[in-house]
């Protein structure tokens, strides 16, 4: 019986016990520019940003949720920090979920080129189409950046959770008092305990952190794919 109770700890590792911390630099891995797929998304977002912010009224090019996005942004500017966080979390979570499962890539002759896994959507793509798991967290990240939040106080955090199949993404935010909140796509904001999460890796526009404590480079990397 004792072994059964111990199993979740074995499976989920030691990080589960504590809250996520921005303080430790031990898990720093690399500058964000070296994480190819994320760098491409940051670049694309920078290119689309002007058009995104110009959609204050419905019209040419202002499709999907672009108009409501700008209205919410304007409203949020007059609110307290806690209200801003609540508003952005609930607003972004109202976007319909779209699965981007891995796609097999082939050349014109039908030869398999590889597998495309995650594609991080830009905020524009998320608001005009839909998004999947990680896109909710990145959309919140970009929206808070528009509200003037410091990138050093935010990380898109990839996690694993008990009772949830597959990897999941949340937005970790450090508040002025040092508290860390996790904004989840299920509408919840985890303020104190982050016990149900195991932290895998995190990123913002500056850096990438690898939180896996059992990484073995000689095992060819742990793919963790589902």
């Amino acid at each position: 019986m004792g072994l059964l109770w111990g199993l979740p700890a074995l499976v989920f590792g030691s990080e589960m016990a504590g809250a996520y911390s921005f303080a430790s630099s031990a898990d720093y891995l690399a500058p964000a520019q070296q994480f190819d797929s994320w760098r491409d998304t940051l670049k694309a977002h920078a290119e689309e940003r002007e058009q995104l912010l110009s959609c204050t009224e419905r019209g040419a090019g202002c499709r999907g949720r672009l108009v409501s996005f700008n209205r919410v942004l304007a409203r949020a500017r007059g609110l307290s920090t806690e209200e801003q966080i609540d508003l952005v979390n609930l607003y972004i979570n109202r976007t319909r979920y779209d699965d981007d499962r891995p796609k097999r890539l082939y050349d014109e002759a039908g030869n398999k080129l590889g597998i495309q896994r995650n594609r991080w959507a830009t905020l524009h793509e998320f608001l005009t189409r839909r998004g999947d798991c990680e896109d909710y967290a990145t959309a919140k990240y970009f929206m808070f950046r528009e509200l003037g939040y410091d990138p050093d106080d935010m990380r898109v955090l990839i996690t694993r959770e008990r009772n949830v199949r597959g990897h999941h993404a949340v937005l970790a935010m450090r508040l002025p008092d040092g508290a860390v909140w996790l904004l989840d796509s299920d509408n919840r904001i985890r303020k104190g305990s982050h016990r149900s999460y195991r932290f895998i890796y995190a990123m913002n526009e500056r850096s990438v952190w690898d939180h896996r404590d059992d990484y073995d480079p000689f095992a060819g990397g742990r793919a963790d794919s589902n």
Partner: protein
Amino acid sequence: MSYSVKSMGKRIVLGAAAALCAVGTLAASQEGERTVKVPSLEVKERLQSIEQINVTAEKPVQEQAPISNAVAEALREAELLDTQTRAAETRGTSTERAVKN
């Protein structure tokens, strides 16, 4: 022999040896600016390993009331705008189809 160098907006006069030193330092700093940071093999492997992680979990949304009237009002307004946009886009698509037919 002496050389005149402009540094931090001020003109200073250097002896020959000091001037050679200054030129060497300047060349080194320019070289430094051209340096491109390349990830080590281990960092590359870890980045590739991270990139392979497929983030797909979908969690059911929990009903959560907004924390204030201001937040609720902003969400209501957003919902209304989204509904209007969807309706306009649907009308546009129908019109396009009708024109094509």
